């Protein structure tokens, strides 16, 4: 590969020559822009992170002659940025801080390119454009992984919350009940289905009562989920009763044209329990 076809050669040279200065100036630029929140990361950590990233960038630039973020040369840089972003999410940092971390590198780079090229404006502009492109793409990558990690954290928390909010109660030997409270969305309905099926296996239940007294409204998707749940319960050899259907929900179901064949429904948890006891062959006697 000749010097001319290696578009990154100048950047590498400048970076190599002025490495320490660029690193120091980058750290200074980070403080200026309010990126270095020392309550999140210690001075030491920030310095280490910056140094690792800068070295990795230098290595990546030394690779192939052309800049392509997808190439293997840039994997180490991306891995570092990903880890740093994830750390920032975990410690409550913002997406701006995370992205500005890498974007502030432009300042020292441009400064040193300026010194290198002095009055050769044309060449200077080319290099500035190139380094800008590289840092921008790294910035966009950082944003993306920050968001991905934050989404993952939110999903984990939601799953935990959902787990806690759909407890299964063993009402009697062979009868389990799932009293649902609050709005049911499609995802929660899915969780309900999984929980009730697992509970049926664990408790060896014959009948599962899903009580929706505490659910204000139901849309088509959720209604369909409940029906699928009843079908799955039947497939496993148990029976499903949906209780606590309010007049409003009953109307919704009919208006939505949702078909509910073979699903046993009851207006109240009480009558559902009566049905359940009857089915397993028990009678409740007064004293």
């Amino acid at each position, binding site marked *: 590969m000749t010097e001319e076809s290696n578009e990154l050669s100048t950047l590498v040279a400048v970076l190599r020559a002025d490495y320490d200065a660029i690193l120091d100036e980058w750290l200074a630029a980070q403080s200026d822009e309010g990126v270095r929140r020392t309550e999140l990361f210690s001075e030491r950590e920030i310095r280490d992170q910056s140094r690792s990233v800068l070295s990795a960038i230098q290595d990546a630039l030394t690779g192939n002659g052309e800049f392509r973020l997808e190439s*293997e040369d840039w*994997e180490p840089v991306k*891995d570092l940025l990903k880890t740093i972003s994830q750390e920032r999410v975990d410690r409550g940092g913002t997406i701006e801080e995370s992205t500005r971390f890498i974007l502030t590198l432009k300042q020292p780079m441009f400064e040193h390119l300026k010194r290198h090229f002095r009055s050769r404006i044309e060449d200077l502009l080319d290099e500035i454009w190139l380094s800008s492109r590289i840092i921008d793409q790294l910035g966009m990558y950082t944003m*993306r992984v920050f*968001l*991905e990690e934050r*989404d*993952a954290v939110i999903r984990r928390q939601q799953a935990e919350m959902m787990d806690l909010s759909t407890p299964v109660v063993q009402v009697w030997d062979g009868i389990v009940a799932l009293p649902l409270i609050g709005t049911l969305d499609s995802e929660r309905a899915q969780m309900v289905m*999984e929980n009730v099926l697992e509970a049926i296996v664990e408790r060896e239940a014959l009948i599962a009562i899903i009580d929706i007294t505490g659910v204000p409204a139901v849309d088509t998707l959720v209604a369909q989920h409940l029906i699928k749940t009843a079908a799955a319960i039947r497939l496993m050899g148990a029976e499903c009763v949906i209780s606590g259907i309010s007049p409003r929900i009953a109307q919704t179901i009919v208006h939505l044209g949702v078909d509910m064949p073979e699903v046993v429904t009851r207006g109240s948890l009480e009558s559902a329990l009566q049905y359940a006891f009857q089915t397993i062959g028990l009678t409740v006697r007064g004293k």
Partner: protein
Amino acid sequence: MPPAPAKRIRLASTSDIVNARRAAQAMLEAAGMRQIRITRFSTAISEIARNTVTHGGGGMMELAHEAFDGRRWLTATFTDSGAGIADIEQAMSDGFSTAKSLGLGLGGAKRLADAFEIESTPQGTTVKLACRLT
């Protein structure tokens, strides 16, 4: 870290269907997916793998990690050089239970996967299933 290399499974006879399914299960388990999602996707894989063997005259499945739309996916691409499906829409609507389309679990597979693509010509068929990891 570069993504895990793609995995190719030969689909020549019906006993290869289990291999295809288990390979997918292993990759989904390694990715930390919940059991229900693993079962759903593996079932879809089983359907298409069977089609490839019995209707496509045998072929190949390739499992790979892909990223698009800012998310990560596990994709399964099935290829065969069979006679192709004449009417894809009909095949998919009949789904699973009618005598006419015995074996064509296409409709079911589509519902069970997070993404589904199919291309079929008299030279062969390609089906791509995807399971969203993030």
